[in-house]
């Protein structure tokens, strides 16, 4: 890692890690006890560790001169390793909490292992840890190849990746210690949110500076999606996480929004975390890696532009479909519903565009499991966006809201679409950046593919059944006008589905573990790096 930096860059890195250590020390000293001090020592430890690594190797031989004439792939490799680590940890927690719903007493009676504290560990670990690292790593790769230019500088990618993972660790360890804001997918406390803003601005500046030095006049559409991902997530994160800390020296804080305004802003953020974190970013991945792996240009480039602006425009409105029949004003619910149904058009434009791109390459889809991952991802993207538009219709929502059907929809999107496209991209990238032409074991990719598909199907179908059963049981009236079922009866009816869901999640986790092993083996045998070269840097107009 450090061998890729020049002496001056190492000195700058040393300075930054000392600043990080000082920040950590200040936090620990201010808080003196409690979660914030633990997090202060974490930052201190990271800062000191980095300082030693950099300090020790500061006068090692510098990379040779042609460094600037090759792509900078070390951050991408680090990002992929973190993606795989977070995937295995967060999916294991997911399977554990799923099992807890079937065996509630299968956990030690400690606060840290209670379901309520583990659930956000699963969601933050997957969305931010697994998804976020995958997006940052692949965005560095895609950005450089589509701009035919090296990253603008060699320090900020490390600032972004290390800073981002510190945020994820702060968030996850905070929940275990009971420090959370309870706003879904934004549970991290106030200082972690501020830290993420700093990291995200660094990421945005690095992205724009690299785009500005591109040697390819046109900005390829994948970059639009990545750019929208970075920009809109910043808007969402800042507005939704505005909060007043109780004391500057404690992790406790109170969001400034309350009641119906907080509900609207939370779900404006909540659904757009799904939209721009889990959709736009990964569509950028799809629009780059699918054509590359199938060797065919996108079926209709113009359709991808229409789809881009449709998604960027429509998705923002739909948050209020999380609040049907609640105390949110009726007109806002209707707006959310209308735009959710209209959103089907740009969503299926991208799904169709991706699948049509494979015309003439179906033999590759049959033979190459990596491409099959991406194809199945596009199919599940179509399925879950259709299901989403359907669920957002008010009468349908009156049945599905608060039930496990929502969980089924979430996991048809995350397992079927997001995870599959990430695995497709990882199996394309890892050989390339380790100078090989294939993964160590292609049978392992096949095993992973079938475990992932079967795990997803078992999970989603179990949750459909669970959710619709709940919805129907809650609303059933018997002949003399009384409610047919008590709430507890609907909980008892869930037992078989929660068991099936745990099995589905376990299958998927097994696949992810195989993927982690395969990548570890491939990276270990790496010799050399990616063979493609950027164009000679001449000033982009």
């Amino acid at each position, binding site marked *: 890692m450090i061998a890729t930096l020049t002496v001056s860059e190492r000195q700058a890195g040393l300075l930054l890690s000392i600043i990080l250590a000082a920040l950590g020390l200040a936090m620990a000293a201010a808080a003196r006890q409690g979660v914030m001090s633990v997090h202060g020592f974490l930052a201190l430890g990271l800062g000191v560790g980095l300082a030693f690594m950099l300090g020790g190797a500061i006068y090692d031989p510098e990379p040779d001169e042609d460094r600037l004439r090759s792509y900078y792939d070390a951050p991408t490799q680090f990002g992929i390793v973190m993606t795989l680590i977070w995937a295995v940890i967060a999916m294991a927690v997911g399977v554990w909490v799923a099992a807890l719903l079937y065996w509630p007493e299968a956990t030690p009676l400690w606060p840290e292992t209670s379901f309520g504290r583990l659930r956000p560990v699963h969601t933050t670990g997957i969305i931010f840890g697994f998804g976020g690292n995958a997006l940052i790593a692949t965005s560095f790769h895609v950005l450089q*190849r*589509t701009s035919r230019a090296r990253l603008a500088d060699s320090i900020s990618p490390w600032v972004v990746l290390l800073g981002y993972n510190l945020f994820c660790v702060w968030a996850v360890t905070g929940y275990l210690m009971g420090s959370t804001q309870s706003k879904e997918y934004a549970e991290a406390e106030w200082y972690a949110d501020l830290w993420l803003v700093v990291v995200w601005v660094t990421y945005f500046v690095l992205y724009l500076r690299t785009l500005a030095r591109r040697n*390819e006049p*046109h900005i*390829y*559409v*994948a970059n639009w999606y990545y750019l929208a991902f970075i920009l809109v997530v910043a808007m969402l994160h800042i507005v939704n996480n505005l909060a007043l800390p109780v004391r500057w020296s404690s992790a406790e804080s109170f969001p400034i929004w309350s009641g119906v305004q907080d509900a609207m802003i939370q779900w404006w953020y909540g659904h757009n975390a799904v939209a721009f974190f889990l959709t736009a970013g990964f569509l950028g991945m799809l629009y*780059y890696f699918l*054509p*590359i792996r199938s*060797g*065919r*240009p*996108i079926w209709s*480039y*113009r359709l991808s*532009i*229409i789809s881009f*602006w449709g998604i960027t*425009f429509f998705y923002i*409105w739909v948050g209020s479909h999380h609040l049907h029949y609640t105390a949110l004003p009726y*007109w806002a619910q209707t*707006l959310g519903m209308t735009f959710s149904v209209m959103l089907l058009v740009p969503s299926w434009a991208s799904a169709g565009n991706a699948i049509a791109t494979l015309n*003439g390459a179906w033999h590759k889809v049959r033979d190459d499991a990596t491409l099959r991952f991406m194809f199945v991802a596009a199919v599940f993207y179509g399925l879950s966006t259709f299901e989403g538009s359907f669920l957002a219709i008010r009468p349908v929502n009156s049945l599905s809201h608060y039930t496990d059907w929502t969980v089924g929809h979430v996991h048809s999107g995350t397992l079927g679409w997001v995870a599959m496209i990430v695995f497709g991209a990882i199996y394309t990238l890892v050989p390339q950046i380790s100078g090989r032409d294939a993964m160590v074991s292609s049978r392992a990719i096949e095993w992973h593919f079938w475990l992932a598909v079967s795990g997803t199907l078992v999970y989603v179908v179990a949750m459909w059944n669970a959710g619709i059963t709940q919805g129907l049981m809650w609303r059933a009236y018997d002949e003399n006008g009384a409610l047919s079922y008590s709430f507890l009866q609907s909980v008892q009816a869930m037992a078989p589905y929660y068991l099936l869901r745990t099995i589905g999640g376990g299958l998927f986790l097994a696949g992810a573990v195989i993927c982690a092993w395969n990548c570890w083996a491939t990276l270990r045998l790496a010799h050399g790096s990616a063979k*493609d070269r950027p164009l000679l840097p001449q000033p982009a107009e």
Partner: protein
Amino acid sequence: MTHDLLLYLSKTVGLIWLMGFFLIVIIRTYNPSRRAAYRAAARSILPDGMDKE
């Protein structure tokens, strides 16, 4: 800024903004003068050897 005025605005401006934005995007995307640029863009990421059709 009374609530009713804001409500009226949000029910009208948003949709006008939508129609206008949609028209701009359609015109820019399907403008014939850009057809070649987009065809080249689609191919730009493929290694030149695999440049079919």
